[in-house]
């Protein structure tokens, strides 16, 4: 069972890479979906470059959201930041009722077309799951453990770095993964505001009525998102095992 899963993942990954590197080889597969001799494979840019730009945007935004959200999460769970806690919790709840498209669309008139509105939307929307998970993880740290750490003479800083954050790590990592997955989707929509990314292929297909573009764009983006989610989940497990063994 486990071997089958590994085999499936490897196959999906190789298929994705093969398609991105030499898409023309797959042209016969997509040719039936075109009409009037339209190109069967996206021809307005390199698919590999688009995929790289897509991932670049997603990870840049996710890194920024992680730094800000984890710091804020730590701040509002310290005694000195307690006044900000109720509002933070409510805001996270309200923020998640905002559709990512709305965040993206509102950013456009403010900062213009291109990469910037997408980055802003990804950053802002990506904050929520990480912030939420950081807060709940730090708040549910068993008080007996913290008391024990205090009893051992650890300063509040040592307690945070040595006890609370490592205990909170699984939930924080899960928040980062959620945030990355949402970002991959939102970055796809970013192509409607001229950000470089794989959404471009789908949008081009919709505009030129080329079903082959829509299908390959959808398949590549979907496959990439699934592999990313799955890969990050695996990485998380490995990382946690390393921490707990070490």
């Amino acid at each position, binding site marked *: 069972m486990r071997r089958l899963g590994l085999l499936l993942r490897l196959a999906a990954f190789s298929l994705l890479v093969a398609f991105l590197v030499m898409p023309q080889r797959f042209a016969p597969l997509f040719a039936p979906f075109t009409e009037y001799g339209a190109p069967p494979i996206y021809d307005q840019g390199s698919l590999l470059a688009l995929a790289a730009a897509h991932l670049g945007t997603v990870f840049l935004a996710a890194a920024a959201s992680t730094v800000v959200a984890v710091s804020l999460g730590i701040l509002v769970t310290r005694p000195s930041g307690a006044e900000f806690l109720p509002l933070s919790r409510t805001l996270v709840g309200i923020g998640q009722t*905002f559709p990512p498209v709305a965040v993206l*669309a*509102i950013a456009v008139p403010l900062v213009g077309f291109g990469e910037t509105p997408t980055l802003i939307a990804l950053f802002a929307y990506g904050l929520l799951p990480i912030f939420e998970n950081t807060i709940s993880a730090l708040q549910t740290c068993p008080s007996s453990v913290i008391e024990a750490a205090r009893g051992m003479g650890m300063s509040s800083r040592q307690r945070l770095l040595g006890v609370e954050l490592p205990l909170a790590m699984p939930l924080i990592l899960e928040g980062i993964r959620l945030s990355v997955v949402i970002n991959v989707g939102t970055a796809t929509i970013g192509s*409607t505001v001229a950000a470089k990314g794989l959404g471009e292929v*789908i949008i081009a297909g*919709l505009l030129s009525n080329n079903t082959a573009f829509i*299908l390959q764009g959808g398949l590549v983006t*979907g496959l990439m998102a699934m592999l990313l989610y799955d890969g990050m989940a695996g990485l998380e497990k490995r990382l946690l095992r390393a921490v707990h063994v070490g």
Partner: protein
Amino acid sequence: MTPTPPPLHRIDRLGALLGTASIAAVAWLPFVTFKANRIASGTARSLFEVLPFGTALAVAGIVVVVAAAAIGVASPRSRLAAAIVGIAVVALALAAAAADLTPPGNRLVRVSPGVGCWVLLLVQALLATDALARLRPGPGLRVLCLALTGAVLYAAFALGLFDQLSIMREYAVNAGTFAREARQHVLLATGSLGAAVLVGLPLGVLCHKVPRLRAATLQVLNLIQTIPSIALFGILMVPLGALATAAPWARELGVSGIGAAPAVIALFLYALLPVVANATVGLGRVSPAAVDAARGMGLTGRQVLTQIELPLALPVIVTGIRIVLVQNIGLVTVAALIGGGGFGTFVFQGVGQTAIDLVLLGAIPTVVLAFSSAVVLDALVDVMSRAPQ
């Protein structure tokens, strides 16, 4: 270290931050943006430039009082009242500014809220939210607050208070389509939810009874959720288009590659995970003692399920429905890209024309719809969890 004397009044740090921000917004940030027509570039006007001096001073004064209350008053009730007064005053000032700047009968001039106005509204809304969060209102009160806010907003719009604002100008142009897209938006979101509940609940029960099935089903549904919405719409367009070409009956039912059909199916697929996962979790939490007791009383397996297990799992199941509904209302926006309609139509039209008011005309109702459904369903979950088990 010198001992600091105890402060006379405890200063609220959140209030200090937000209060300072609102005073700064009144003093330095533009209150409205004025455009000679829809495509002209806008000029920023401060509060004192757009309102008569006395009125502007009064508005600024009230903002300062609200800020002071946020900093120095501890009672959440008073803070809430102050924030509400602040929001109302800023909204009225905005309406007055728009009316003042628009020459009578002129339909070209565009007045929209400036950065300062947005900051003021946001800061005071944050203050109100914070006060409400500290008051911890019960489910009934929360729904009542929502209904009251809705009624006040409805009255304000019905009276034409904001008619001179740019976004309402866009509404006036699109009034006919707005109602249609609103209906389409709600229909797409709730229709796919209904289908997901019809399929997802039995699937959840099955997953609960057959543990081997559970892991595999949830894994597949999890993977589906990670597929970006445009991608899933795109993938579904191909088989649906083929079906419509091949089968006339499908075409007559309205199935086609573009439009509502791929949107409904994609939303349905996304909705399955929360419904199935929450049904399984909810059923899993039902205490074995309750099930045993019911069996002991001679209830059949079906009776145990419908009379004991499902009612006990209901709060968790409804939580799943809440997740789906909020998620669906957001995702329907994207359906506009493939001709599915809904509020996204305005959003993407607005993006195409770089017209922020048109974007907002699509985005604000979507957020309001999602937020209201979240409040109502959260209240419902609260009521159900409190009911004696």
